[in-house]
């Protein structure tokens, strides 16, 4: 069993700067947990504290039920893959893979067997006698992955492992890592993963659960669908999803037929589902959140249609991102390509928002008040 448990973790640097503010996180055995956030959110620091490469200022970390705060990195049962591969430049791939085993005094035959096994899984057999400088980025990253795999650790730690690769390779490595994780899990081997990235595509596609961080605090921990559908606060709402969720200041009005949001000269009446979700104590000053994907062209005589002035239009091939102005507020709207011409005309189009997928955030606290 290799569940990872982080309790009230803190990191305070020498100058008194507090980088991590009491983080609590439980990663179940075999779970793929992604830490995601903008740069400077302390996701890497948190990972490095788990690895034992940074000292812990407060709280504790336990792996498989054992508190590891004061253990050396090599004694924690972890393996780590670094952003810039961190292969030992003077050792051939074979030696790179087996370095940890050799230090541990493993028998030669066993080392050879495990090197061969890992080489087969990662298809790096032909590279075993090369030096790291003779490898391409993707090959080097596979070797780095192999160096982690060969140790049979309880917890795998990944520190932005794909950010040095080009887009195409990144996509294929994403699949490879996810499949590897699935395979380990199926074999009943320890396969708990903590994966740090700033790329939300990686987070959404790879993670069983995602932990969104900001300035050393956890904003929300949830599976990808929940994060997308039910963001708990403004930060998560704005961070997850592409293009970014439209966030516009609005007034929440309570009428006899339910709630409505007023922004500029426009009024957006909420649908029945959404009306039911709004907290009773929701304030008047709110931020309206609406994903660009949750707009559609309005029927000709729709009374709820919003008049949108089309500004710049980005043609992406499979869709069109139109930057529009509705009631004085700027929105990004994703439209089907067939509407490209119409949207590009620079005139006005009539849009209908999906009233049941409007998020309402308390403007003061940033909390989502439409989740009840």
């Amino acid at each position, binding site marked *: 069993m290799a569940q990872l448990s982080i309790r009230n973790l803190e990191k305070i640097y020498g100058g008194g700067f507090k980088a991590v503010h009491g983080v609590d996180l439980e990663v179940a055995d075999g779970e793929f947990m992604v830490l995601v956030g903008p740069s400077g959110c302390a996701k890497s620091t948190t990972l490095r504290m788990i690895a034992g*490469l940074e000292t812990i200022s407060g709280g504790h970390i336990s792996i498989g039920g054992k508190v590891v705060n004061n253990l050396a990195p090599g004694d924690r049962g972890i393996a780590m893959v670094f952003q810039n591969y961190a292969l030992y430049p003077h050792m051939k791939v074979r030696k790179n893979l087996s370095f940890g085993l050799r*230090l541990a005094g493993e028998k030669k035959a066993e080392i050879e067997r495990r090197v061969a096994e890992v080489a087969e899984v990662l298809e790096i057999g032909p590279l075993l006698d090369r030096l790291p400088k003779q490898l391409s980025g993707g090959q080097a990253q596979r070797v780095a992955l192999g160096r982690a795999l060969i140790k049979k650790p309880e917890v795998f730690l990944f520190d932005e492992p794909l950010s040095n690769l080009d887009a195409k390779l990144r996509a294929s490595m994403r699949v490879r890592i996810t499949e590897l994780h699935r395979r380990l899990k199926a074999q009943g081997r320890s396969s708990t993963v903590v994966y740090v990235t700033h790329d939300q595509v990686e987070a959404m596609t790879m993670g069983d659960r995602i932990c969104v961080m900001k300035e050393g605090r956890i904003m929300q921990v949830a599976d990808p669908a929940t994060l997308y559908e039910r963001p708990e606060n403004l930060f998560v709402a704005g961070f997850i999803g592409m293009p970014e969720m439209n966030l516009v200041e609005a007034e929440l009005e309570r009428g006899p037929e339910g709630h409505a949001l007023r922004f500029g000269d426009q009024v957006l009446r909420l649908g029945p589902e959404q009306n039911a979700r709004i907290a009773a104590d929701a304030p008047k000053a709110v931020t309206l959140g609406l994903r660009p994907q949750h707009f559609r062209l309005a029927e000709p005589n729709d009374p709820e249609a919003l008049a949108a002035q089309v500004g710049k239009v980005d043609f992406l091939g499979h869709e069109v991102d139109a930057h529009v102005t509705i009631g004085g507020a700027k929105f990004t709207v994703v439209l089907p390509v067939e509407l490209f011409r119409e949207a590009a005309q620079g005139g006005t189009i009539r849009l209908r928002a999906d009233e049941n997928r409007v998020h309402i955030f308390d403007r003061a606290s940033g909390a989502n008040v439409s989740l009840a």
Partner: protein
Amino acid sequence: MSQTMLDDSAAFDADAEAARHLALQERRGRISMILRYAVLTAVGVLMLYPLIWLIGASFKNNAEIFASPGFIPKDPTLSGYVKGWETSTPYTFGRFFWNTFLIIAPKVIFTVISCAAVAYGFARFQFPGKRILFASLIATLLLPNVVTRIPQYLLFSEMGWLDSYLPLWVPSAFAGDAFFVFMLVQFLRSIPPDMEEAARVDGAKSWQVLIFIVAPMLTPALISVALFQFMWTMNDFLGPLIYLSSVEKFPVSLALKLSIDTSEAFDWNRILAMSVLALAPSLVVFFMAQKYFIEGISAGGVKG
């Protein structure tokens, strides 16, 4: 049709024009290159002349050395080498070369090991008082050597180490050469610490990281350190002069002076011949290590 011919002739004119320009540029380039190399060669020969003269003069006889300023001996002789090698002491120069080796070898080894360890500590570990310690290390760089000679002499004299090689060896075993520590710290700072962290995750202790990961990555810089230490020790005159008193322990640098002291009329060709020999080891070692030495200077960046 005529339009095409017109185009063709215009194109031809343009080509001819371009060819003329190219030829002109090439000629100018060649002239400027000849001028540049002429100046460089002249200055180079001027700077090397003393060395060339030294080598030439070592094959002259004593009378000729001061008679002609040229460097090609009229009547080449090896007597300078033969007699110089014998010296006026009971020992040959071979003994002095061996003594030099006895001083240099431990010193170079101690320096490389101790400086690498100290530089690793300063570059990679946080410990209380680190800034002050590093500042005082750098401060010793600024301290003139002469200032510490007397206290050092008294210290080693108290320890009974006079007339032995210990005063020459021991300081280097404790990273006494601040310059090398500084150089290695700078080199280490240019290497990202990720490889060392990976090794720690792989279960390496700090000393294993130093030996298996850091030292191999530092190799070019360590070779530079060894090379500098070799040449400086080879050329060191003051250190042996102060601490060594028996002729049988003299290194080459002292022995050269010895042949000036003891002969009444200096046999300059002997001294010059032995000087040439004394230069040889440094040159040989330098050219052998040159590849790594240059690598050490140029290989700053590590692929990220």
